[in-house]
């Protein structure tokens, strides 16, 4: 009898399960969204750039992707010599609302404003914990961020489709000298795409979990 035969066989690992976040904090997994051919360069400095794309519209909101790139030094090879590129939205420890006002000022920040004046700001992954009722739209949340030495790619989810007018994305990055600025998204294009997005099936009611995925 072998050593391991004296132990019960290990249970197979459970399939990974993406955290179920409230619908106002994450796009539906039961929807085929409609893409917008929309790109925008928000920041283009000598060594740093930020651009947005990935506008995928759902019946109740839309995603976008914020891409930050740092120019690589001349000596950069395939895997060495690259500058360190930390998450410009701040480390995880900031994401439960624990950052000071000064720390927040230095981060890359995003918000959204509808034409009727309603607005929201992306507060980070921890902000939604414990929510049982949605805040009033628009709600903007971070999801699915990742990066490496050269880039940081951050997904954002905007919950809420305005009935009228355009959508303003508001951003600033104090540490990089980027003042509060705006990027306008065509509201008619968003509404048209939202009407064409397809809900594939009804999702069962699910308990919200406290996991985060970025």
């Amino acid at each position: 009898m072998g050593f391991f035969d004296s132990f019960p066989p290990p249970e197979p690992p459970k399939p990974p399960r993406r955290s179920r976040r409230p619908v106002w904090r994450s796009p539906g997994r039961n929807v085929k969204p409609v893409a917008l051919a929309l790109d925008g360069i928000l920041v283009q400095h000598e060594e740093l750039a930020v651009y947005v794309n990935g506008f995928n519209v759902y019946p109740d909101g839309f995603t976008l992707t914020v891409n930050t790139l740092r120019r690589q030094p001349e000596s950069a090879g395939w895997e060495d010599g690259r500058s360190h590129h930390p998450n410009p939205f701040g480390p995880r420890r900031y994401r439960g609302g624990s950052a000071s006002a000064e720390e927040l000022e230095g981060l890359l920040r995003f918000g959204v404003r509808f034409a009727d004046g309603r607005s929201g700001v992306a507060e980070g992954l921890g902000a939604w914990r414990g929510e049982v009722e949605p805040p009033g739209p628009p709600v903007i949340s971070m999801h699915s961020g990742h990066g490496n030495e050269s880039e940081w790619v951050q997904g954002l989810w905007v919950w809420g489709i305005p009935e009228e007018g355009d959508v303003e994305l508001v951003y600033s990055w104090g540490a990089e000298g980027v003042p509060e600025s705006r990027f306008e998204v065509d509201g008619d294009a968003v509404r048209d795409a939202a009407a064409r997005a397809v809900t594939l099936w009804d999702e069962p009611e699910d308990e919200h979990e406290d996991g985060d995925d970025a």
Partner: protein
Amino acid sequence: MRRVESGGQPPRRPRRISAGGSGMSSAEAAASLGLAPGAATERWRVAPATVAWDAVLFDTAEVLAFVPALRVYPSGFRFTITALLRPTASEQAARTFADGGVLGPEAEHQAVRGLRIGVQFADGGRAALQRNPIRPQARTTPTSLPLIGSNRWTSDDGIFEWGINVAGIPKDGSVQLYHQWLELDIPEAWTLIDGDALRAAAARAVELWPPRPSAAG
């Protein structure tokens, strides 16, 4: 949630080889999208142009896969395949999905019967994605376009997203994007990518910075 990030490869200077297609050498095009070593990588110095594609690759009783958009660079394009497992899927299909229908265990049968992706240009040039490693062409010097590789993927019990890179923009004609997933009874089929839209988007991509002299050489 599982997450795999593309890993680095030791620096190696690509050999210049003349190739048809996009007007770049295949080595340059491969390097430009991170499919082969090269510090001149476009994805780190170019803002791509988006083509809204909204293509459904396959839609069965078990799974739906679609590509919302293409992100087009001067010498290639990238996209993300999103697959959703339907609540009505069989246990076997759910197990296949959860086992990593994309990049699961490297059993030979799965490499053949799992999801396969390939591209073909109008001039006959074509390439099929090799399952694992993430950046297969990094091991060899590419000889012709197009080339195809994968980068980041995430998956869980109900959804996976798989990033695909294609090096090369065809000079003429359209691109056929092939797929096949025999484990889920999805036979080989293809979806057409409008070549004119690709070429127009490649021209709209914005160079943020020129290549460093040492990287361009």
